């Protein structure tokens, strides 16, 4: 016997959570874009999507975020720290890859300095993940040692029932347990069978890939030029990535006052490494693409012992020129050795 949540009780669930002071965000479509929006009713949710186009990362590390308001006076500078609001949030219907993305980024934001902006939001958010029972051509979680029912980064795991009436419910963390305690009468005991997870073929051998990347000789390989010839140097892949986390600090205002902001930045851009002198150490697109792959599958794992990729496939799914991590890692995997 396990606890289950029926689709028909989802509205009661949302009402109970709101009554407990949570706001609920779920995948939904607004203005021709699927993303996590605040929802009021179960009917607002688009839970049948393989993945929303935007990730939940946006709600923890927004594309632009004010940090400090400043005013320069004659003999002093006034500053006022701007902190994100203390919201209790539930992310409902997260896919395992997106939930994993948060867990992959946690060590980065907490390594030498604890990023308050990230952790304040993390601390107030409950991640309710739904295991995948369907996948598309671009999904590749199984290639990066995750799976369509991976629990990494999740507080509660929902597994769709075979009969399609609801989900098996499993709390994975204290935060998840606390959330389920707000809906005791809505959950019920059942022996209904779970649906099998989606079948996601393994597309490359990650061990071969990481070994090749770790070899210093690979850095200057001609491979990088060939694989990235068609890359146009936009940031679609990095900005849609659930784990890419690079940012730029910008002051916006006039001579005397303004706001210091933290804005997404991307290693795909030529400007990313441009020095004040005009020298650019990564002056070609191939060196930028190499950086992206090396960072995710060599440097990051060297530092935090995890690949900076959760296999969502958005980089390929949305690439204007049909590139992406899958093709590159497949090609590395197939290089003659």
């Amino acid at each position, binding site marked *: 016997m396990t606890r289950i949540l029926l689709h028909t009780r989802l509205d009661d669930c949302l009402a109970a959570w709101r009554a407990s002071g949570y706001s609920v965000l779920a995948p939904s479509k607004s203005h021709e874009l699927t993303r996590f929006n605040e929802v009021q009713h179960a009917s607002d949710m688009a839970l049948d999507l393989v993945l929303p186009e935007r990730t939940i990362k946006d709600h923890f590390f927004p594309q632009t975020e004010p940090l400090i308001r400043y005013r320069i006076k004659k003999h002093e500078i006034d500053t006022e720290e701007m902190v994100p609001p203390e919201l209790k949030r539930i992310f409902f219907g997260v896919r395992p890859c997106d939930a994993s993305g948060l867990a992959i980024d946690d060590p980065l934001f907490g390594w030498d300095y604890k990023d308050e902006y990230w952790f304040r939001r993390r601390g107030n958010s409950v991640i309710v993940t739904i295991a995948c029972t369907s996948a598309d051509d671009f999904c590749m979680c199984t290639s990066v040692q995750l799976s369509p029912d991976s629990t990494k980064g999740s507080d509660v795991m929902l597994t769709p029932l075979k009969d399609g009436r609801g989900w098996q419910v499993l709390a994975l963390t204290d935060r998840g347990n606390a959330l389920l305690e707000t809906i005791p009468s809505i959950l019920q005991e059942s022996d209904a069978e779970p649906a099998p997870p989606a079948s996601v073929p393994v597309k490359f051998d990650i061990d071969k890939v990481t070994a090749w990347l770790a070899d210093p000789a690979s850095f200057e390989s001609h491979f990088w030029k060939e694989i990235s010839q068609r890359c*146009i*140097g936009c940031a679609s892949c990095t*900005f849609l990535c659930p784990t890419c986390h690079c940012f730029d600090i910008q002051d916006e205002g006039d001579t005397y006052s303004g706001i210091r902001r933290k804005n997404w930045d991307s290693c795909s851009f030529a400007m990313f490494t441009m020095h004040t002198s005009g020298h650019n150490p990564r002056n070609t697109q191939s060196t930028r693409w190499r950086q992206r792959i090396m960072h995710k599958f060599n440097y990051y794992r060297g530092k935090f012992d995890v690949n900076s990729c959760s296999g969502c496939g958005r980089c390929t799914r949305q690439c204007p020129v049909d590139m992406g991590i899958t093709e590159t890692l497949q090609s590395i995997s197939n290089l003659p050795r």
Partner: protein
Amino acid sequence: MGIQEQYRNEAAELLSSGAVKLVIGYGEGSTSDRRRPVFIRSADETARLVLDANCIANLSGYLVPEGLLSDGKSVAVFLKPDGIRSVNILAAEAQVNPDQVVILGFDIDGGQASPLPGRKATDFAPLIESQKSTGLSTELQQEADQLELMSATDRFEYWNQQFSKCIKCYACRQVCPMCYCRRCIVDVNQPQWVNTSSHTLGNFEWNIVRAFHLAGRCVACGGCDRACPVNIPLRLINHRMSKEALDAFDHFAGESADQKPVLATFRQDDPETFIL
């Protein structure tokens, strides 16, 4: 012989005779209906070329990277009429020498790719002329009409919502053959003309700057619209600018390599007095 085989043979011949050093075309993509740009440098690689109704991207942007044409050698490129018009604009703006561009022209109609006769941009002049007389896309116009019917307030709100989605990934810019500036205005930071932040104001600034820079230059290839990962209907902005250029100045972007850029020229007999 189908068009794909015909053009593969032609590409092989161009490469083996030394007429071109490179063929920019389409290859298989990561799914059955996707095509990706491929760069073919020898005749024995031409079997990688694919040509069918899924080959919709405008490849002319791959002609402009610095140094590609500086050795005086020619490059062949697969282009639909929109891409041929792009080459004309790039030539008019002194970005490519049209004599170095061999066009493997084709069009897509009724789910089929069919060859277009001609090899030089000038060979396609009659075709482009007939496109001009047909006018801008009626489908786009119908979509644009929906916006025109809105009140100014509602229309502003519509674009406010659309631009709020922008994440400044600049996929629209990077995929566009017309966005060849070595340093885009948004990347200039001394002074910082345009906010780099992707908040609604910064997004408005970016999208409006781009719309104006494309006025009279966009050939409606749809590249930016397809590339946009957050589905902003960029086609409607560009269409509106194209319509202004056509209605006010009889300017159909990319009509020929001699065409004067609409925003960088004037006529002595212009009825407006503010110019001179």
